[in-house]
């Protein structure tokens, strides 16, 4: 009897904050029963950099480039959400062409983010061949982004009242070439990821989240869509040029015929969104109106308009990982009175608790990665409990070491 009890007893394993299996700094504590996860707890807040604090000491024209640095992957999402919030407060009307430029760059960002995720997912499964292939395919979108905006990451293209750079006709052939490349490679990608026996074995029925759970846990983006919830900010409340484009949210049953809400479905949704993004960029290029791309070319006028503005607004956009929300309040000063960032992972992270329950240790990396977590987007607060500090200086460590030696000497 006592032996049985021993087998049934639980133990806990900590994973993180820095761990090779996690691509983001976060601390997980798993209560295990044998190989199976019984309970999960996690502690975010390891990546807090005080960006909002910095923002409240700068004017909106400065902040818009600070938002680029919130996340390395979804650079344009944050600046777009922030610019939309400020534009609403200051009642700035963005030129129509700027909306199209914003849409094109946002879709390129989705392309590269989803392909990056696909590579990371393959890597978490131990399938590094596919990881390198996926990142090779991703490189094409990075090259186009670099060609259009000047840099691979931190594009710096969004400005309050429009965009800073126009896409000219002579740049279109390069964009068209990349779209052609992705159309050619899409079938191969779907085949490599979805028909592979290893991926099917590891991802099907792993990390399952039902439609009801997804709704109750307020998940957003591809994580919610993979569970069958048809929600997409681009479709539900269109911004930029999405109102003019013809598309519907991607759901797994469109490809598979049914929705399971497992990791496999999340791969399906993200890969199909790559195909959708190519189509959206093509639609943008075809319907692009002519005209200005910035509401006001003279910077002192933009600064003055932002200073005059009073009120509060919310900028919502669909980042590659889900809904990204920026709340800004201006009170007639140069700097905003309040700026709050809510990234998509903040909404998605609670789904880990349900997804990980009952899974094996070996599945933890892929299930954690399946919501495409981004802690640098999410971490807005760092909580420190109590007043006791545990900083051990060299002198303290030396003292402890000496004490231990003496203790051991006494025992032996």
């Amino acid at each position, binding site marked *: 009897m006592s032996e049985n009890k021993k087998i049934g007893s639980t133990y806990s394993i900590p994973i993180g904050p820095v761990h090779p299996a996690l691509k983001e700094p976060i601390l997980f504590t798993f209560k295990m029963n044998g190989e199976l996860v019984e309970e999960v707890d996690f502690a975010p807040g390891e990546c807090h950099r005080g960006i909002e604090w910095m923002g409240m000491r700068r004017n909106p024209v400065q902040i818009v480039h600070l938002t680029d640095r919130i996340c390395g992957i979804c650079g344009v999402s944050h600046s777009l959400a922030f610019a939309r919030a400020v534009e609403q407060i200051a009642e700035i009307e963005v030129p129509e062409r700027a909306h199209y430029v914003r849409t094109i760059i946002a879709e390129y960002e989705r392309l590269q983010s989803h392909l990056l995720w696909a590579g990371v997912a393959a890597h978490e499964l131990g399938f590094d061949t596919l990881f390198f292939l996926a990142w090779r395919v991703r*490189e094409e979108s990075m090259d186009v982004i670099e060609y259009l*905006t*000047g*840099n691979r990451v931190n594009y710096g293209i969004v400005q309050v009242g429009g965009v800073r750079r126009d896409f000219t006709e002579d740049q279109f052939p390069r964009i068209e070439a990349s779209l052609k490349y992705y159309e050619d490679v899409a079938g191969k990608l779907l085949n490599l990821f979805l028909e592979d026996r290893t991926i099917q074995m590891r991802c099907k029925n792993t990390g399952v989240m039902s439609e009801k759970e997804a709704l109750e846990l307020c998940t957003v983006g591809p994580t919610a869509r993979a569970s069958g919830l048809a929600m997409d900010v681009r479709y539900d409340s269109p911004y930029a040029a999405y109102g003019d484009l013809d598309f519907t949210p991607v759901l797994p049953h469109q490809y598979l015929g049914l929705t399971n809400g497992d990791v496999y479905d999340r791969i399906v949704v993200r890969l199909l969104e790559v195909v959708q993004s190519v189509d959206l960029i093509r639609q943008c290029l075809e319907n692009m109106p002519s005209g200005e791309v910035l509401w006001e070319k003279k910077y002192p006028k933009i*600064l003055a308009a932002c200073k005059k503005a009073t009120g509060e607004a919310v900028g919502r956009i669909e980042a590659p990982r889900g809904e990204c929300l920026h709340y800004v309040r201006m009170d007639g000063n140069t700097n905003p009175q309040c700026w709050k960032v809510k990234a998509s992972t903040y909404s998605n992270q609670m789904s880990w608790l349900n997804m990980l329950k009952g899974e094996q240790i070996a599945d933890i990396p892929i299930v954690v990665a399946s919501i495409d977590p981004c802690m640098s987007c999410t971490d807005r607060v760092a909580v420190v409990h109590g007043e006791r500090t545990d900083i051990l200086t060299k002198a303290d460590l030396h003292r402890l070491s000496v004490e231990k030696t003496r203790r051991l000497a006494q025992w032996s």
Partner: protein
Amino acid sequence: MSFLPAIPEVLRQFFKRPATNLFPAKYLPSSVTKYLKSVQEGNAAINPPVETPPNFRGKILYDRDTCIGCKLCIRVCPANAIEFLPDTKKVRIFVTQCIFCSQCNDACPVDALHMSDEFLLADEDRYSENMIVE
């Protein structure tokens, strides 16, 4: 092989050229500092980096004579990397602080600021001559 579609793809990749540009050397030298020294002496040649795209934002260029000291660049700089020099009414830019957004270039009313193609900016001293533009 229908259940392992990656295998034919891997075999195909064997005969393709590597996608990575090997910079600065084709094979990892036993000592990077020694290698760079021999490049300086002209004994070895550097494998060139990938070309920078048009509109690339590298190290900032400052045209001191054109500058009128209007301070607009200081107001739009997100990183507070630009310092005003009241004696001469010109500015000083700290490259280590700069985040390469080129917003000051757009804002400048007399076009005194530009972005160069230079991106290899590592230095041991953040206040060295190379890291301060004035």
